[in-house]
């Protein structure tokens, strides 16, 4: 199953902010059931997109050397997002330390605020993983690497001061 809930990065500033875009197409399977004749983007999938945008922002801050996992989220929705809309996910790094990171995030459609969220990420070390995981680096790999390249393509160089 593909689990990429952003289409492209629009901007990326290392250690500071990342913006991604998600087009909501009626062809996406979930719209068939959610809901028949009234295609609302499921709220958790908006949150997943925000978490992917913010998670890559956090991961890049440590050159993708640490596993970044979603730990906690406080979210508020202002309205439904419907098929045909384009959502812009803006994430800002609020705090980052060895154990994790805090990101604030918004989803806009045009100029309208659809949702906002505070997201906590945790850094998971190899020692904290359950035994038997084949790869100690389990987050930034596979399908996600394409997204990382997309982020790189729009990234601004890190400020040197």
């Amino acid at each position, binding site marked *: 199953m593909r689990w990429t809930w952003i289409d492209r990065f629009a901007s990326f500033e290392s250690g500071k902010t990342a913006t991604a875009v998600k087009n909501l197409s009626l062809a996406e399977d979930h719209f068939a059931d959610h809901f028949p004749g009234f295609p609302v983007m499921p709220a958790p999938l908006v949150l997943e997109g925000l978490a992917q945008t913010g998670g890559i922002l956090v991961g890049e801050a440590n050159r993708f050397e640490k596993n970044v996992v979603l730990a906690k989220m406080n979210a508020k929705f202002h309205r439904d997002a419907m098929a045909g809309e384009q959502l812009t996910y803006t994430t800002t790094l*609020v705090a980052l330390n060895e154990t994790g990171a*805090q990101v604030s995030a918004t989803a806009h459609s045009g100029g309208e605020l659809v949702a906002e969220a505070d997201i*906590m990420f*945790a850094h998971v070390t190899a020692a904290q993983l359950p035994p038997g995981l084949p790869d100690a680096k389990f987050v930034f790999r596979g399908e996600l690497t394409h997204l990382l390249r997309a982020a790189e393509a729009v990234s601004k160089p890190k400020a040197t001061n």
Partner: protein
Amino acid sequence: MTNDEIFAKVQKTLVEALSVDDDQVTPAARLKADLGAESIDFLDIVFRLEKQFGITIPREELFPESIFQGDATYVAGGKITQTGLAALEKQMPYADLAEFKKDPRMDKVEDLFTVQLLVNYLDMRVKRI
């Protein structure tokens, strides 16, 4: 900053981080047992307190978890040893360990983390600045 001012900020932080009501956040309330905090919430609380008080809280300073992880000199038979208690006292000078020392069971350690402990810690930190 007075103790009351610190408490008010801690209360606001915990209400936001743990989605609890103001009146649940009493000085004696235990973060885990009474306010329902889970381990990941401690990271959230640290980030929020740093912002509220404009300080940096070094890893392990407020919630020294590693001290009791798999070290036989600190923990034996489910109880904290004398060496462990001494280490705890050194690591957490802001904690009141008098009651805990009477029955230093490992499973009671988390009860030390009360709202008052956060206030004491922040009082110490604010004075240090």
